[in-house]
Structure formats: C-alpha cells, structure tokens
C-alpha cells in the first residue's frame, strides 16, 4: 500500500468511529413537552364546534339542526372531551367574516383559552374566503387550537394540514365565485326580458303570479307620506306621525324612522314604474352592495314604465323626489315651491326665488321672466336737463365704501353687507327676486312666514348683525346662467330705490368684482454647485387676487348725454304678489292643497279606526 492510499483509509476509519456514538447509558435525556397530537389522545380537551348555514329557508334550517345535534352528541359522548359550546351563524354568508358573530365569539374564546379543539363539518362551512379561512386557522394554530373538518378528515395541526387546507379553501372560494357569477348571469337574463324581482314593498302585495297588486290599507300610508312630504313635512315629522297612529311598516313594526320615510319616497314602484338594478354587489366576498347610479353606474339598469298599478301620480312622485334632492330646502319645512312671476309694478318680470331650492333650472327661471313683457317706457325725466355730452359718470365702485350696499355670492353662500340692512332700516326678512332678462337681483321686504323669506340679519344692541346664508339653489342657477367659475367669490354693488313706503335694492349681475385664490409656483434660486439633495424644492404660494370687470380698464364709467333725473313713472307696487305660472310648476298651489286635504281625510279615518 502506498503512503497516499493508507492516509485515505485512516481518515475514513476515523469518521466511522465518530459516528458509532457513545453508550446510550451514558446519556441523560430530557423529554419534550407532549405535543398536541399526543395531548389529543391523552388529556381531557375542551372541545367546541362551529356550525353555519347561509340561508334561513327550511331546508337549511334542518341541516343546521342536524349539524348542531351531531356535534353536541359526539363531543359529549367522548370521555376525553369536555363540551364547551356550539358556535353558530345561521343565515349568514361565509364570505364575509365581520358579519359572523358566532365565528368571532369562537375566536375570542379561543384567545381566552376556553377552547382546545374545534369540530367543523367542512371548509366551505367554516369560510368561503381563502384569506379569512387561512388566517383564522393560522391564528388558532398559534393558540394551540386545532380544527377538525369531518368532510375531508383534515386536522389543521397535522403536518399535511396546511397544504391540503390551502388547496381546499381555494376550491371553496372558487365555488363561491362561480355561484356569484351564475346568480349575476341569471339576474341579467331576467331583467333583460322584463322579469323583475318583487321584494316586499309597502303598499303592495305579490299575487300568485308574482305581480304587484295594491294593498289598500298600506297604500293609505304611502299616500299620506307623499302628500305630507310635498306639503313641507320633514321625514322625521312624518315618521313621528305614523308612529303615533301605530301604522305598521311592511315588516309589521309600528315604529317609523326618517330613513324608512325616505325609502318610500324614493321608490319609483309607488308611481307604477320599475327600475331594476339600483344597487349591485361588486365583490362576492364582501357582499357589500353599492348604489348603481350617476358616475357610479357600473351595471345595466332596466326601467319599465307603468309596470303595475300606481299608488301616487307620477307628478307627485317627481315633485317629492325633486324636494328630496334639495336637502337644505326640505329642512325648512316648506311646501313644494311654485314658479311665479311679478306681472306689474316696478318689479315686473322678476321671479321670486327660494335661495335653497335646486328644483328649477336656469332655463325655467328664464322662461318665467320672459313670460312678462316689460318696456323701458315706464321711466320719466324730472327736473332740469343739462347737456354733458362727452362725459362719463365715474363709476361709484371705484370708490370703495362700507356705506354702499353690496352682495357677495360664493358657490353656496350668500352675504349682504350691513349697508343693505341699514337702507331698509327695520326689515329683518326679505325676499329675493331674479330677473334673467335684465340680469338683475332685487331684494324687497317680506313677512317672516313668506316661503321665500330670508332672515338676512338682526339687530343686536341697536346695531345690525348680518348673517351668512346658504344659497345652494340660487348659486347653482346664477353660476350656470352667468358661466361663473366655481371657486370665485362674486361681489356686486347694489342700488337702493325708495318711494315712500316702497323700498327695494337692485344688484346688477353683469359686472362683478371677483376674488379668487391663485397658486403661484416659486422656484428658489439654486447655487450653481449645489448638490442634488441640497437643492430647494419649488414653493407653492396661494394668494387671493381681486379681478375687476374688464370694462374698468377701458372706461371711467357710464357715458352720459344729459344730466337728468329719471324715475319709474308707474305705480311702484313693490310688494305686489307674484302670479303663479301653473304650466311651468310641477304642482300648482291648488293641487298641493288638495293633496293635503287627501292626507287629512285618510288620517281622520285612522283616528276613527283607532
């Protein structure tokens, strides 16, 4: 044997000797704590079970009862098991954990050490959401709590449990996704053929053929809700009234809330139409339905007019929902506004306007103004005339003064300055009128109970304090009509006119002074050798700027030929009531009164029955 071969043999012998080990009797062994698998066999376990059925129909109920009984018997029959509880969720979907009170309670008890072992029928019963299923089981595993699924004979604390569980949970989720797809497909097919779903609805019953038929008793409640709402009752007031009469809701409750009143008002089925897919469920796992409307219209909607017998007329339904869309307006407990116009006097052609009402468009106000023809022949010249050809009257707006009446409108807010209030001396409530032909707003005094009354300020220690007023409806009309920018603040000088008791303020809308916020980007000077990280970033400076009307830069004022005093020659009649434009109003004042009468008659009947 040569030297190299001998060295190799020695090395192998050493390795063999090292791995022969020592005599076992020389070793002291410390045994590990018994594993769960061992404990499962040997110690008394606190055992619970989880049961879930997704719907509450009879078939599912029997399945639920079977599961409960089976688990209870099995746990109690095992001498090594101590019965903890059966945790259950009945009629709850498995895809959304947050709704499952039973499951949440079970997890809570496991955390508190009350449970060692859980029995469940299948993974699909446990959870249909892979993430939720695995995260629950993982948390339970960390707590030393195992789950045993009967269907697959799978135990989560087994070494193979995690892998199999992941696969099975994925299958369970996929099954849920598939069911959701089939349901959506089925619904789409039904709607496209005009076969609509008929959920329970106040005022209607469903006949054997699935058609909606009017339930006369419930229809009375529906009518009263609409009649009162368009006569200025708030949803809260109507809810309180129905509760006081003990009128039942569709579910048989006798307590009403504003939400249920609004639900009745916005449901188009009460006027005989059907609109299908007003909501949809974007995610089958969360089960959260979202509104399918406006910018969020993500699914096809189907509408069928006159699908069934109406309880309220379509114009009443439309009027009520027009009011509903004007939230601030409805909070004032005022009836449905009626479009009207002043047909004589100095304010001829002006339309009284509720500053919060958003139901009328700029075009409708325009049509109302144009329905009255006014001429400029109503003005006369008084006193001496002095020829001043070539001169311009320097505009008063060049000379800012707190004494000059002014009105400021931003997108949603309206404010008059103190000078306006002082001009009227002791007037707290005024009415606002719009003339789209003259592009002018007029303010005249009114009574507190006038539906359009604006409480524009009040006297405090003999000084006028002005109020900032919401004016969503007025602002929307003006910004639309005058093509103003949403962000601007528009200020107008007013002209006060008075003749004896006749007093009014006029604001011409043509030449506003605009205040708006502009952003200016300032780039700081950078030293040439500045390192990249030392370079200063751009600074955005926001500042308010005033923008004067363009005419201010081209003229000093209004050209004048003669210096003269012009006056309105006719009867001023500033407080002249406006004439209702029946053909342009959603409902006339008479119709509103008739509907109120209808509600009163129905409620009389309720009193007698009671």
């Amino acid at each position, binding site marked *: 044997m040569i030297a190299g071969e001998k060295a190799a043999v020695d090395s192998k012998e050493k390795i063999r000797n090292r791995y022969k080990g020592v005599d076992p009797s020389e070793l002291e062994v410390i045994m590990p704590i018994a594993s769960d698998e061992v404990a499962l066999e040997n110690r008394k376990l606190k055992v619970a079970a989880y049961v879930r059925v997704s719907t509450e129909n009879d078939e599912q109920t029997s399945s639920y009862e079977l599961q409960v009984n089976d688990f209870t018997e099995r746990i109690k029959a095992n001498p090594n098991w101590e019965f903890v509880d059966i945790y259950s969720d009945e009629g709850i979907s498995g895809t959304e954990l947050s709704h499952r009170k039973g499951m949440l309670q079970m997890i809570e008890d496991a955390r508190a050490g009350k449970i060692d072992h859980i029995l469940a029928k299948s993974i699909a019963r446990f959870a249909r959401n892979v993430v939720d299923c695995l995260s629950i089981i993982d948390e339970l595993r960390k707590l030393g709590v195992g789950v045993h699924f009967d269907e697959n004979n799978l135990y989560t604390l087994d070494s193979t449990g995690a892998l199999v569980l992941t696969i099975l949970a994925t299958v369970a989720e996929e099954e849920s996704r598939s069911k959701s797809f089939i349901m959506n497909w089925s619904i789409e097919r039904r709607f496209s053929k005009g076969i609509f779903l008929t959920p329970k609805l106040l005022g209607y019953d469903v006949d054997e053929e699935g058609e909606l038929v009017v339930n006369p008793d419930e229809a009375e409640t529906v009518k009263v809700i609409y009649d009162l709402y368009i006569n200025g009752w708030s949803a809260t007031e109507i809810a309180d009234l129905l509760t006081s009469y003990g009128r039942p809701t569709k579910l048989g409750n006798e307590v009403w809330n504003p939400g249920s009143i609004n639900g009745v008002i916005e449901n188009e089925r009460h006027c005989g139409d059907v609109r299908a897919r007003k909501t949809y469920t974007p995610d089958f796992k969360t089960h959260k339905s979202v509104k399918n409307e406006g910018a969020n219209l993500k699914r096809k909607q189907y509408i069928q007019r006159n699908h069934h017998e109406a309880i309220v007329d379509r114009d009443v339904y439309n009027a009520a929902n027009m009011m509903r869309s004007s939230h601030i307006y409805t909070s004032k407990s005022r009836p449905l506004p009626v479009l009207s116009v002043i047909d004589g006097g100095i304010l001829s052609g002006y339309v009284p306007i509720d500053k919060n009402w958003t139901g009328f468009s700029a075009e409708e106000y325009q049509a109302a103004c144009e329905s009255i023809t006014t001429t400029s022949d109503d003005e006369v010249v008084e006193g001496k005339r*002095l020829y*001043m050809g*070539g*001169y*311009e*009257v*320097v*505009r*008063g*707006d*060049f*000379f*800012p*003064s707190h*004494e000059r009446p002014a009105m400021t409108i931003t997108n949603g807010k309206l404010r008059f300055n103190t000078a306006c209030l002082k*001009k009227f001396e002791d007037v707290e409530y005024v009415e606002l009128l719009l003339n789209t032909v003259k592009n002018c707003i007029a303010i005249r005094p009114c009574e507190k109970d006038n539906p359009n009354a604006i409480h524009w300020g009040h006297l405090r220690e003999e000084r006028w304090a002005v109020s900032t007023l919401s004016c969503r409806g007025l602002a929307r009309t003006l910004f639309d009509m005058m093509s103003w920018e949403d962000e601007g603040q528009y200020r107008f*000088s007013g*002209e*006060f*006119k*008075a003749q004896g008791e006749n007093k009014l303020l006029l604001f011409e809308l043509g030449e506003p002074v605009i205040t708006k916020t502009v952003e200016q980007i300032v780039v700081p000077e950078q030293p040439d050798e500045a390192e990249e990280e030392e370079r200063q970033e751009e600074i955005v400076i926001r500042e308010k700027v005033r923008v*004067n009307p363009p005419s*201010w*830069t081209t003229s*000093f*004022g*209004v050209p*004048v030929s003669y*210096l003269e005093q012009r006056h309105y020659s006719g009867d001023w009649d500033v407080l002249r009531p406006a004439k209702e434009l029946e053909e342009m109003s959603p409902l006339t004042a008479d119709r509103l009164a008739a509907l109120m009468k209808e509600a009163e008659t129905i409620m009389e009947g309720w009193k007698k029955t009671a």
Partner: protein
Amino acid sequence: MSEVQNNISEKEERRQEIQRVFNPDNCQVIRKELFASLRDPAVTIRNGNITFNTACIRDFEGVVYVRLLYDKQLKFLSVTECDENDKHALRWCVAGADKRKSRKMRCPDFTGPLFEHVNAGINLT
C-alpha cells in the same frame, strides 16, 4: 412852471417810457393756481385717493353726495350733486351738525387709470 405841472410831466414821461418798453406779446398772465388760496375751489388727486377742498364743498351748499364726471377728450373733471342712493353717489364731505368738512376718498382703481390718461408721468407715491 408850477409844482403840479411838473408832476404831470413826470407821470407822462413814465407812461411813455413804459409804453415804449412794454411788449404784451412777450408776456404771460401768471396763473392763479400758483397763488393757491384756501378760498379757491381745488381738488387734490394723489395716487390712490382724491380730495375736494373746503371751498368746493362750501360752494355746493348743503350737498353731501356728488357724482364725478370726466371728459376724456377735454380732460375735464366735473362735479354734480346727486341723491344719496344714486348708484354712483360719492360722499365727498363729512357732514357735521354745523359744518361740513373735506373728506379724502380712496379710489386707487380711479386714480391709476386717470394718471395714465392725463399722462401726468409723475410718480406721486
């Protein structure tokens, strides 16, 4: 020759001397504005405000509110009385119980373009 005759003769000589020397074509009438008096109506226009002096206000007896008129071609500024509620009414004085005082009226949007228009070219800030 009597003393009276001597005086007349001296005056006549001076008159003839003046007539010989004086040439009205070379003369200018000194403008009154150079001898400003509080009694003369005057308006002061600064860069941002305008003030009428008390003489103006006194001449418009009892008038508190006026309108300004401007002729761009003639560059004339005129004042006329008006009603308090006139859209272009300006309160040009402070009306006390017994007398009215001059009042400075702030109007940067007027004086700016006005200076430009009359081409004053003077920075009065």
